[in-house]
């Protein structure tokens, strides 16, 4: 962990070791930023295709129609549609939001904010990014394999996903006069699945890709935990850490505990597919038309337990870092100390620990014992309490503040506003009898997009805008940023808010053509309205990309501390050199000493000036 010697040898490195195989935590964070941006574009385009189909389900799409194969009749096939939403969700979750939150913010910010020269294990850190590349390549290649990409939903429930064709029995055609049918062993080496085209090779690619993502995230979280526990600058007590670091710390613990479960579950499903084990195949076997599997010995429900045991904590992995980032930004631009620092830390810890015992609320309708549902319901209801505490503390920070409307602040305020909507809609689903109706309808789709898009992505936009000057030494363009924010806020709400109404109307999710149902007929205008809003929302994101690339070269040069913020990263030059600090800072106080009487209204964590403020906690 003696980084100084390491430091001197690495400064002589060339292009490859600086930009590609870098062990510098800042470069790794930036690598995650740009690969996330590429996948954000891909995932967004997939979403727009989904919306197109929903708005005009009878096909005949202008211009786009002719891209589809002749055999589909000039429109999307239902199988293609299932592939779209599967890949949209998988890409957005595993290749955009988690890499941006933990990869970009975790890597870039943790050493800078705790006053360390780098991560505890720089090589491991490099690997954590570079195992993402097989994942990137495999997930993109999966679009082009036989049968197309995975199409069993991002939840990938067996037995839609896990049945392979290499082991099974085929019923011989019944001949007249023969009472019983006979069977022959079915042989097929192509990995096709009888359940759906995408459940063959595409599913295998999906599984392998996510196993790589899982390994990469494991490496990252081990690194974050070790770094935060061992490498804090002198004086940086745990209770003086900025909330961003706390959130990343808690997220890393969540990841370290939950991810192995998912990785194992993925491997079990991969074995089911490749060598016809039957972890998720029921004892009686299955029949798809004339085709029968061999009797299994497992349980399809086991997958759901394993999957949600990871994926519910994963929901918090996808929101906690954004909460931390937003807290720091709100305090900075309110010019006011964070209200209730300790309750904020404890409520994040409470969300994380309760997060481990609520996974069953995804399974109220799954066939789980209804009595078990009550326990999961109570835990789920309780998790709303720490979420409420956080919201009230953000509002209390704003109360009596002196708000500066920078782009970062606006995005952070939008996070608070949208998180309220996403949080409140969750209470409907926590109530088991109401969830019976809302489960797997658009109400859920609305909820997840308010939490993941409208909250996490606004948090990410806020964070990128806020730390861009530290990453690249230049500020992002403010007017462009504000236009991008306002349009995203408007079109985002126009796209996702009507989904609540669709859900109340009983519109099931993952439907290729809802119009064949009489009870959904008059919801169709809403679907079309949302699609138009979604396209405008997609176009708006181009402004963000333009802003990033414009500001990289032409942005206003930023000094060390453009936002007059308190935390340690603003002591380092912008961008910080390898090794970050000229001299490791000594921390004097907590991170939120704003609204100070004096020549400056803030006192940085390392400032040795006496603060002249009476502290009342």
């Amino acid at each position, binding site marked *: 962990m003696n980084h100084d010697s390491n430091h001197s040898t690495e400064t002589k490195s060339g292009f490859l070791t600086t930009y590609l195989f870098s062990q510098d935590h800042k470069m790794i964070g930036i690598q995650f930023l740009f690969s996330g941006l590429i996948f954000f574009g891909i995932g967004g385009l997939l979403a727009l295709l989904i919306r197109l189909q929903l708005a005009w389900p009878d096909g005949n799409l202008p211009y786009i129609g002719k891209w589809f194969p002749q055999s589909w009749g000039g429109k999307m096939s239902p199988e293609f549609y299932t592939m779209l939403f599967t890949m949209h969700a998988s890409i957005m979750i595993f290749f955009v939001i988690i890499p941006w939150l933990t990869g970009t913010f975790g890597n870039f910010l943790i050493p800078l904010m705790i006053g360390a020269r780098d991560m505890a294990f720089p090589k491991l850190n490099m690997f954590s990014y570079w195992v993402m590349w097989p994942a990137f390549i495999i997930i993109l290649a999966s679009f082009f394999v036989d049968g197309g990409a995975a199409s069993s939903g991002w939840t990938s429930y067996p037995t839609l996903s896990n049945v392979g064709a290499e082991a099974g029995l085929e019923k011989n055609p019944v001949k007249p006069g023969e009472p019983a049918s006979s069977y022959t062993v079915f042989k097929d080496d192509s990995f096709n699945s009888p359940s*759906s085209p995408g459940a063959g090779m595409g599913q295998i690619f999906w599984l392998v890709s996510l196993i790589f993502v899982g390994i990469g995230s494991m490496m990252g979280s081990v690194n974050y935990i070790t770094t935060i526990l061992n490498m804090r600058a002198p004086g940086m007590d745990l209770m003086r850490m900025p909330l961003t670091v706390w959130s990343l710390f808690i997220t890393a613990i969540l990841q370290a505990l939950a991810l192995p479960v998912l990785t194992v579950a993925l491997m079990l499903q991969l074995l089911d597919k490749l060598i016809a084990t039957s972890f998720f195949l029921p004892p009686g076997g299955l029949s798809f038309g004339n085709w029968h599997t061999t009797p299994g010995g497992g349980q399809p429900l086991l997958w759901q337990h394993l999957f949600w045991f990871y994926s519910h904590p994963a929901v918090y992995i996808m929101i906690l870092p954004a909460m931390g980032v937003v807290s720091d930004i709100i305090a900075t631009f309110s010019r006011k100390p964070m209200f*209730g620092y300790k309750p904020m830390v404890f409520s994040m810890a409470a969300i994380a620990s309760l997060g481990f015992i609520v996974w069953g609320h995804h399974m109220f309708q799954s066939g789980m014992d209804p009595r078990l549902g*009550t326990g999961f319901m*109570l835990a789920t209801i309780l998790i709303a309490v720490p979420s409420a505490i956080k919201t009230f503390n953000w509002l209390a920070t704003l109360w009596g503040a002196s708000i500066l409307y920078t782009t970062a602040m606006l995005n952070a305020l939008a996070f608070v506003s949208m998180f309220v909507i996403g949080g409140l809609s969750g209470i409907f689903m926590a109530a088991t009898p109401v969830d019976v109706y809302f489960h797997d309808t658009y109400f859920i789709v609305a909820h997840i997009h308010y939490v993941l898009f409208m909250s996490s992505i606004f948090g990410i936009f806020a964070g990128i805008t806020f730390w861009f000057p530290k990453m690249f030494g230049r500020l992002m363009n403010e007017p462009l940023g504000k236009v991008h924010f306002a349009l995203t806020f408007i079109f985002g709400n126009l796209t996702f808010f009507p989904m609540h109404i669709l859900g109340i109307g009983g519109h099931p999710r993952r439907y290729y053509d809802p119009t064949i149902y009489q009870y959904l007929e008059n919801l169709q205008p809403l679907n079309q309205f949302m699609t138009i809003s979604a396209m405008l929302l997609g176009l708006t994101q181009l402004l963000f990309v333009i802003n990033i690339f414009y500001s990289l070269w032409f942005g206003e040069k930023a000094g060390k501390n453009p936002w007059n913020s308190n935390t340690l990263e603003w002591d380092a030059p912008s961008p910080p050199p390898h090794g970050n600090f000229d001299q490791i800072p000594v921390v004097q106080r907590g991170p939120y000493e704003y609204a100070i009487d004096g020549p400056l209204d803030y006192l940085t964590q390392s400032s040795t000036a006496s603060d002249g403020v009476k502290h009342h906690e």
Partner: protein
Amino acid sequence: MHRCWGLLFAAVNLAAIGLFAISPAMGWWLPKNIASYGADIDHLFYLILVATGFFFVITQGTLVYCMFRFNAKDGAKAKHIHGNTKLEIIWTAIPAIILLYIGFAQTPTWAKMKYIEIDTWFPIRYKGTNIESDLHVTVLGRQWEWRMRYPQGHIPADPQAWADLGNLHDLHVVNELHVWKDAKVKIHLKTQDVIHSFFMPNLRLKQDALPGKVMPMVFSPIEANVRYNPKTRILEELNPSSTWEIACAELCGGNHYRMRGKLFVHESKQDYELWFSDALKNQRIHESTRLAPVVASSNGVNP
């Protein structure tokens, strides 16, 4: 300019409230309820809607107020406050109490839906199940249809065994669930391939069909939508707008959206029996031209 941001936030939140306000009038709302416990669910939905609506207005209102009021460009001075324990306790306790109330308020409805007996004083303690039914139906999901199987005499001697294996004289119908008004219906839900979810929006009911298992579903419709005319052998709708549909709510492959079924609630048991006997006669005529009855086997290789 700086005042516009508060306006933007206010406008978006007001639009959200506005959409909820106009939706019932536009017909974008809960479908008609026909379940005996459905009123309880809807009541619970409105209870949560009021509670969340209250917190929505409070929190968004405070946010928008702060955005207008505490503005650096208007010369607002920030106060150096780190927190307030009393406030923290208050805003932890109030949501906790409301949430726990919602938590306990729902357990009787959950028990009613699942036909579980619960302790009156501590409603999350279960005492046992009490399922007694007037009509048993087996529903088998497959890619991509629902196969319904009705027993003669409505109640089989051994429901579990009947659900597993069936009986030679059962009536088989595809995508049509026939019951009668006020009947206590028990559905034995199965699947032969992937997970499906039997969703009847009007009954506020949904249950996943799990491969290898028989899932129970219990309900009792309080309203009828059809009458059987034995002369014309046609099901007559009582009301042109009362088509009640069945959907699949769990992704089950490309044609997931096409697992559309219909729910027919007959006026009376007699009316159901008229339909049943005609349908069974009809099935026998067709069967005589076949070699073996179509018995959908529940699971796997079991010829």
